[in-house]
């Protein structure tokens, strides 16, 4: 048995003459999808696997497929003769351009075997001279193939070919099986005393954590500080005992080269290390050098969720191996320029980082460790008199200790990198998208994203405020009761059937849906949302509610109103309805509803009079007249229905906000999933002229009398001109159960279905609810997801992705009357 070991993520290049058994070998050892053969590609581009004229096109295709697979991190095997240097060179370059390793497996079979195999294949009608030429190429190659740039070349001959067994090597960087918890420590730079203080603060006793936590050092243990050997000794001991991991920093690299006697510029604190190493004995010097030489560029930890690299690492380099990956990990994304202090200009790669893995790094000293797109730099410049900082993972807590003194003068003054304006990228929102939510993966179609982009860009509030958009809500199954399109019975039946035992019926306010974000102070807003101001209020499509300073005055009023809640939590996100309807919908009411009312009011009495005159002449207009009279009454009721929700508003006076849910707050960041009694009890504590209470009643669905009482409650509410009610399971249901359904009153529905809709009930009952109900569920899941991402401190683009998706789904065509 011959064991061949190849890297888990790599390009494997098979080398051998035609008839050497490459395809058979590939079939035996690899999945069919992993093997890309030149014959197959030739077939794809020429309908003939042996059309040699199509070879260039076939290799174009082959390289393309291989490139896509490598980009996606898939092991790929190339089944082509590859006996010529040029062919192999192209593949090695392809692997390198995707930062994956490349192995070659050579199948070296005698010429007569290959000729004999080809002879029995009718499609291989080329002569034996072709094989001979390939054999010659291969023989020449074999002497130099080790210089082609393959990580390893495996040559198999005779029985070895059939006996071979493939095994897979994990990359050195692959520590995905280690799940921590970790304490990741920033750049130490020879500050041994501060390191001991920090380790003690983290709970380490003599380099070991009693709870089995693992320390991870981001590199740059040495140079500049007072005791680089001491730091190394501590870290080496911990690593050897399995209590720590360490990646290489650029200073370790340079120190190793200096210790090796190579010519390096002695600057940036290297001189300190060299002085200190000169005082150590030879054994220490050897141990330290070996340790530093063995440090690798980065680690991928915790199932791929955490990456530690000295200078950070962009997503496409994580877990990969190449010179440029190592260079990025050690030096960062340098542009080759230097700044006015002679230090390299570093490209702010973290601003564009969109990877799922958390990246923890050091290298660039700043005054404060701050999260940027799920990455954090822990170098807080202890050696320059700053602090030594560690990150507890997965807790995401920062622990730091101050420098005992300024050990080394910085070449450039330490600054905070400053908060970037959290600019979103077009790639965060466009194209077909699949958003992971607790309710499953939700697809957002490209054409909907296209429409949403315009709304979001032109009309929505700052995306940092826009942490949520409310989902649409479906009615229950259409009622069959005489005179009703919607009735509470169906809502109760639906939830009872889904196993819900307790629901709350909340008065449905007829106004405009409003999401309110409030902060106790502008500082709290800056800390939580990274945005200036103390709050905002926006519509269900993310638009600001009011223009100019009215918005600010309204927010100020609400902050005053919700002061009791803001005492417990420095910020709040509330869901509610802004009243009256006419405050926001004035134009719609005048242009649509009042216009219809005006036309009806002018036309119908005249028509009734004309018909009465005709009847007076003895003409048989009875049924026409009846109908005209009914329509006259219907039109009057229609007018009453909309007029009920219109009140004069001037400035703040007349405006009211009726909250019914606390979407998020500091104490329970995803408050949205808490039971509704929690929400309603808290909101009940707010009494203020700007705040309108949401009347509600709880129903035990197993108690028939409670159901009946709730129906009466609804009837009274709607008879008095109310829009209707929303029925919600008290406990957040999850799964396929609607988070709530709306049951609208018969008079209110005139606004939706027209003045005479009760005359066409049978027709209207044939409405299709499925799409609306599915949409309601999907949008709800996305909203909850957006809030959980906010709660988990995920970067803006992740929150925005889910919020944007709600808006995109709202662009799906659905019967707007539902």
């Amino acid at each position: 048995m011959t064991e061949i070991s190849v890297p888990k993520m790599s390009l494997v290049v098979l080398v051998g003459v035609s008839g050497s058994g490459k395809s058979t070998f590939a079939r035996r050892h690899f999945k069919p999808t992993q093997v890309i053969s030149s014959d197959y590609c030739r077939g794809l581009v020429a309908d003939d696997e042996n059309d040699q004229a199509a070879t260039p096109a076939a290799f174009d295709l082959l390289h393309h497929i291989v490139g896509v697979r490598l980009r996606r991190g898939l092991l790929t095997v190339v089944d082509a003769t590859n006996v010529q240097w040029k062919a192999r060179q192209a593949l090695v370059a392809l692997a390198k351009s995707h930062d994956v390793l490349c192995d070659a497996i050579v199948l070296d079979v005698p010429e007569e075997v290959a000729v004999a195999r080809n002879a029995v294949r009718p499609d291989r009608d080329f002569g034996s001279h072709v094989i001979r030429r390939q054999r010659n190429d291969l023989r020449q190659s074999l002497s130099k193939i080790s210089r082609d740039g393959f990580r390893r070349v495996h040559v198999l001959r005779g029985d070895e070919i059939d006996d071979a067994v493939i095994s897979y090597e994990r990359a050195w960087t692959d520590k995905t099986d280690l799940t921590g918890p970790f304490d990741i420590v920033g750049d130490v730079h020879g500050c041994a005393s501060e390191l001991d203080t920090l380790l003690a603060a983290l709970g380490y006793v003599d380099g070991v954590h009693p709870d089995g936590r693992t320390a991870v050092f981001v590199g740059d243990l040495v140079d500049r500080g007072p005791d680089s050997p001491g730091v190394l000794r501590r870290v080496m001991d911990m690593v050897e005992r399995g209590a720590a991991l360490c990646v290489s920093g650029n200073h370790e690299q340079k120190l190793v080269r200096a210790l090796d006697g190579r010519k390096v510029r002695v600057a940036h604190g290297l001189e300190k290390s060299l002085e200190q190493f000169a005082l150590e004995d030879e054994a220490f010097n050897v141990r330290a050098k070996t340790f530093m030489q063995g440090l690798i560029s980065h680690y991928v930890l915790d199932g791929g969720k955490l990456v530690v690299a000295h200078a950070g690492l962009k997503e496409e380099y994580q877990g990969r191996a190449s010179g440029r990956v190592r260079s990025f990990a050690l030096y960062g994304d340098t542009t080759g320029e230097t700044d006015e202090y002679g230090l390299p200009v570093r490209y702010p790669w973290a601003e564009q980082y969109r990877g799922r893995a958390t990246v923890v790094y050091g290298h660039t000293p700043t005054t404060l460790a701050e999260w940027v797109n799920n990455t954090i730099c822990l170098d807080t410049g202890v050696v320059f008199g700053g602090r030594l900082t560690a990150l507890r993972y997965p807790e995401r807590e920062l622990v730091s200790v101050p420098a005992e003194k300024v050990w080394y003068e910085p070449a450039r003054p330490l600054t905070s990198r400053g908060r970037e304006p959290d600019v979103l990228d077009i790639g965060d929102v466009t194209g077909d998208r699949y958003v992971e939510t607790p309710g499953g993966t939700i697809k957002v179609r490209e054409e909907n994203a296209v429409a949403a982009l315009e709304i979001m860009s032109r009309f929505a509030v700052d995306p940092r405020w826009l942490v949520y958009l409310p989902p649409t809500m479906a009615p229950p199954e259409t009622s069959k009761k005489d005179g009703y399109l919607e009735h509470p019975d169906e809502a109760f039946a639906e939830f009872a059937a889904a196993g819900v035992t307790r629901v709350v019926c909340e008065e449905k306010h007829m106004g405009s849906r409003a999401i309110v974000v409030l902060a106790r102070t502008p500082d709290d807003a800056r800390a939580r949302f990274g945005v200036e101001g103390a709050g905002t209020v926006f519509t269900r499509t993310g638009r600001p509610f009011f223009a100019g300073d009215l918005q600010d005055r309204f927010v100020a009023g609400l902050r005053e109103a919700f002061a009791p809640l803001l005492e417990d939590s420095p910020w709040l996100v509330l869901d509610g309805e802004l009243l009256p309807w006419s405050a926001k919908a004035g134009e719609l009411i005048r242009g649509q509803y009042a216009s219809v009312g005006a036309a009806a009011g002018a036309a119908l009495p005249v028509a009734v009079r004309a018909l009465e005159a005709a009847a007076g002449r003895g003409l048989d207009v009875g049924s026409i007249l009846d109908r005209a009279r009914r329509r006259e009454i219907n039109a009057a009721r229609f007018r009453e229905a909309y007029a009920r929700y219109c009140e004069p508003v001037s400035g703040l006076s007349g405006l009211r906000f009726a909250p019914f849910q606390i979407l998020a707050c500091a104490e329970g960041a995803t408050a949205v999933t808490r039971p509704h009694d929690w929400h309603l009890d808290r909101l009940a504590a707010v009494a203020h002229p700007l705040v309108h209470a949401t009347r509600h009643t709880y129903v035990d669905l197993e108690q028939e009398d409670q159901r009946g009482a709730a129906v009466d409650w609804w009837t009274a509410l709607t008879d008095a001109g109310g829009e209707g009610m929303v029925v919600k399971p008290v406990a957040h249901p999850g799964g396929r159960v609607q988070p709530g359904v709306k049951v609208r009153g018969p008079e209110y529905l005139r606004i939706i279905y027209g003045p005479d809709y009760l005359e066409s009930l049978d027709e209207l009952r044939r409405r299709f609810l499925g799409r609306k109900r599915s949409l309601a569920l999907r949008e709800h899941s996305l909203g909850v997801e957006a809030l959980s991402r906010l709660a988990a401190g995920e970067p803006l683009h992740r929150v925005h992705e889910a919020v944007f998706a709600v808006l995109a789904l709202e662009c799906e065509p659905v019967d707007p009357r539902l």
Partner: protein
Amino acid sequence: MLLTISTTREPATDLGFLLHKHPDRVQEFPRAFGTAHVFYPEATDRRCTAALLLDVDPVRLARTQGKTTPDFSLGQYVNDRPYAASSLLSTAMAEVFRTARSGRCAARPELAGTAIPLEITLPALPCRGGPALARRLFEPMGWDVTADPIPLDPAFPEWGDSRYVTLTLTGELRLADALNHLYVLLPVLDDAKHYWIAEDEVDKLIRAGEGWLAAHPDLTLITRRFLNRRTALTRAAFARLAEVGDDAEETLEPPAEEEVRIPLNTLRRDAVVAALAELQARSVIDLGCGTGQLITALLDQGVPKITGVDVSAHTLMVAARRLKLDRMGSRTRERVDLFQGSVTYTDARFAGYDAAVLMEVVEHLDPPRLPAMERVVFGAAKPAHVLVTTPNAEYNPRYENLTGLRHPDHRFEWTRAEFRDWARSVAARYGYQVEFRAVGDDDPEVGSPTQMAVFGKEDPA
């Protein structure tokens, strides 16, 4: 939904002969979306009134039309069509009184050719243009017009009048002419037709307008509105009306019903094109390209690479059609690129241009979103030059009829000082230099209507 026609020409009941509908009968005419009824509320020798009542079922209307309905107001259940004298009434009238409209009457041929005293009432006529337009359109044919505006809602007097009027027409006219006037002018006043406008609409218009339309002082408005502003059809109609022998010649020239804007657009575009030529920009990205006017100008100028970006996919579709992208020769086509993007989202596709143009774009962004735009354009895309134009608010008092901002979507309009402060601070933050130019008539007191900033990167590395 109701139309009454009365005459006092004795014997008034002869109206029944003219209309081909017996005064003592109630007749019913089924239509796709409801039923038309004809009956006579009064029928004496001295005065006779015929009523056409169109009973529109809005639910049926909505359901029968479905999603493909051409007129979205019909797709809604809350709809004025059941009450208002719209084009639905006009077409129903045209069919129910088809023979009368043609002026044929076997029983009373002479009467059909005679002008008789008529009174026509429409209790709720949608009238875009108000009572004045109703008078303007009917009076030239000899009608006395009473058009009373209907308030939106008496309980809310602050809402003012609705778009409906109660219309009464009185005059001595041939009945057939009266019906044809209504047939053409009801949809014109309503200005929202309910079906697709096809070629044969021109025929219908010509037929119904025979003898009066070509000489009507508002011929242009009537034709354009009746044909739903389809320019090609309107031109066809004008040409045909000219054939008919009327002096419609002068109306053939640019039909311009919309207000003629001073060509500030053109001045602005020319200023941008000139600035780009000075900068020798060989690749230009037009952020907020709209329907592509600047792109056309730059193509003419021979700029080798022009990219148009707009946030509205629909606008880009119009731009592609206007530029005739699909029919462009491949060499020209390679010079142009159009795609959807937003200036508040960084976009790798924005990078690598000699110049970016933000022509009348910044004022459409809410002020708190400006830093994001600055970062996307000046910080991430980093073109060698950026041209920004925006209105100069100081100039606004020079526009006679302007109250407020120049466009409903403008979030702000800057004075010259505000614009300069903003531009200089952006330039300082992102390493650009900036100079300013006036676009349009440079008023010594208030400056030019449009202001332009030309940014140049200090270190074009």
